[in-house]
């Protein structure tokens, strides 16, 4: 006879050789390897303080005949800890989904059971094929005052545990991030970047349930983000970009009235349009080009720094830009 046996990590395990007497002569093997007699108490196999590495197939053979008398598959694991459950509506008003996982592995098979109660009604949460550990529910009614109560129970051979979430229909609304975010420079506009994006495809009805958006952007070299909130439209032109600097841009979405902001979209990079660098030979030309490209953030100080002891050549341009930017960064910090 053969079966599976589950034991907790750290437990002491005693295995009997089937129906053999205690004083019978037997040999035990673990995964085909003979086990030393020191682990035996008569014909019983004693494993103290088992650990995960001791999982495997244990077989017991009668001493002289080598007949297989007993076989068991030992699986060492732990009872489940309290599972982590999350429910979210990224497709309002269609419904919501719940997903879960265990905070630490149990090393043995677990079954999950999820129940959803809405007031007095039991609802069925349909399990998704992919990803596993996820199920979805369709709303039958909208604008409900009664909370939803979701209970997740996890069970394995060594124990069980559960967790509960209670929430209002409105509280779990969180769209997916906006899609297809694109940022482009605007020709002949050294301080502009045109950003456009699309509603997340999982949001089913943007006409009746419009989304609003939050845009954040910063030059790669600075840590501080700038933010713009947009109540409609799926595009925006940034007009205060630092000329010539590469920007990182992200967008988030939220239902106009309820719920929470989505995660940030995938970041896009863009650099505003710059004029083709010309070959400079005189100090006067450097000053001219520099002041033409500066803004209210960067005006007089930049020109002065570049004026003093300016060196002919494109290397000087780089110095001017960096100096101007440092000054601008400081002024931004002090605003």
């Amino acid at each position, binding site marked *: 006879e053969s079966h599976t046996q589950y034991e907790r990590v750290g437990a002491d395990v005693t295995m009997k050789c089937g129906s053999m007497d205690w004083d019978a002569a037997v040999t035990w093997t673990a995964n085909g390897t003979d086990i030393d007699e020191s682990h035996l108490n008569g014909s019983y196999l004693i494993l103290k303080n088992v650990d995960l590495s001791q999982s495997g197939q244990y077989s017991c053979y009668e001493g002289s005949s080598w007949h297989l008398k007993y076989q068991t598959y030992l699986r060492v694991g732990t009872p489940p800890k309290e599972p982590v459950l999350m429910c979210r509506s990224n497709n309002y008003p269609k419904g919501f989904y719940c997903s879960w996982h265990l905070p630490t592995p149990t090393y043995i098979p677990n079954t999950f059971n999820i129940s959803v109660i809405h007031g*007095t009604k039991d609802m069925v949460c349909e399990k998704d094929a992919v990803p596993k550990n996820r199920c979805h529910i369709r*709303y039958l*009614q*909208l*604008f409900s*005052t009664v909370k939803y*109560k979701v209970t997740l129970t996890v069970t394995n051979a060594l124990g069980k545990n559960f967790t509960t979430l*209670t929430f209002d229909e409105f509280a779990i609304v969180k769209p997916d991030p906006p899609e297809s975010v694109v940022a482009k420079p605007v020709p002949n506009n050294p301080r502009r970047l045109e950003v456009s994006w699309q509603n997340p495809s999982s949001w089913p009805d943007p006409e*009746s*349930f419009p989304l609003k958006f939050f845009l954040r952007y910063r030059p790669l070299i600075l840590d501080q983000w700038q933010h713009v909130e947009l109540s409609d439209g799926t595009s925006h032109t940034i007009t205060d970009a630092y000329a010539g600097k590469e920007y990182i841009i992200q967008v988030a979405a939220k239902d106009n009235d309820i719920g929470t902001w989505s995660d940030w979209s995938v970041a896009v990079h863009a650099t505003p349009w710059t004029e083709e660098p010309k070959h400079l030979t005189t100090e006067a030309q450097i000053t001219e080009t520099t002041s033409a490209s500066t803004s209210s953030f960067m005006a007089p100080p930049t020109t002065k720094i570049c004026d003093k002891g300016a060196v002919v050549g494109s290397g000087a341009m780089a110095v001017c830009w960096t100096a101007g930017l440092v000054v601008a960064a400081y002024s931004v910090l002090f605003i």
Partner: protein
Amino acid sequence: PTGDSWGIFTFLCAALCNLPALPALNCSEELGAGQSIQQTYDLTRYLEHQLRTLAGTYLNYLGPPFNEPDFNPPRLARAERVPSATVDLDLWRGLTDNARLAANYRAYSRLLCYLRVLDGQVGTAELRHRLAHFCASLQGLVLSIGGVMSSLGYPLPAGPAGPPAGPPGAPAAPNDFLKKMDDFWLLKELQTWLWRSAKDFNRLKKKVPPAVVTLRLEARGF
């Protein structure tokens, strides 16, 4: 998209106003409908924010368990007399503009009635003051919805002329705890209605301007 609809609408309005055979249309009235829908929407958002503070204060006044965030009592039959915002999704989508506006008008009129009853009963001066202010704003919302309905040519629903004590036949709460439960559900329904109205007026915002012109043309036999 909103800009385009306004452009078409304004053009049509101007064109119609210039047709010699017709008496001049009151264009400002039609434009007014679109604007007052926006104003009504803004008012529901304002009330929703106001309600959060009011509800917090009121539930603390009621004391535990009403002020606990996890409090999730079953609906008792008696609570059904408070108009519910809950509705079947397809039904809600298919509501005509008239039905949509009328549902809001009726709901807030009744909720206002109940809130006024509450106002007469609460203990602290602070609560009375907050409730009075909220009731005034809510009255404004009812009037605003009524205004939108009138400007679109819809008749106002028959007033909920129920006495301040509530609809006839509804028994007063037999004990203090059940009375508090009634108050709890009243606030909950009010909150849900304000969330729903934001969505109702979103739909109306997008649909009304062209529909208004069609309505007027029909009235003149075109």
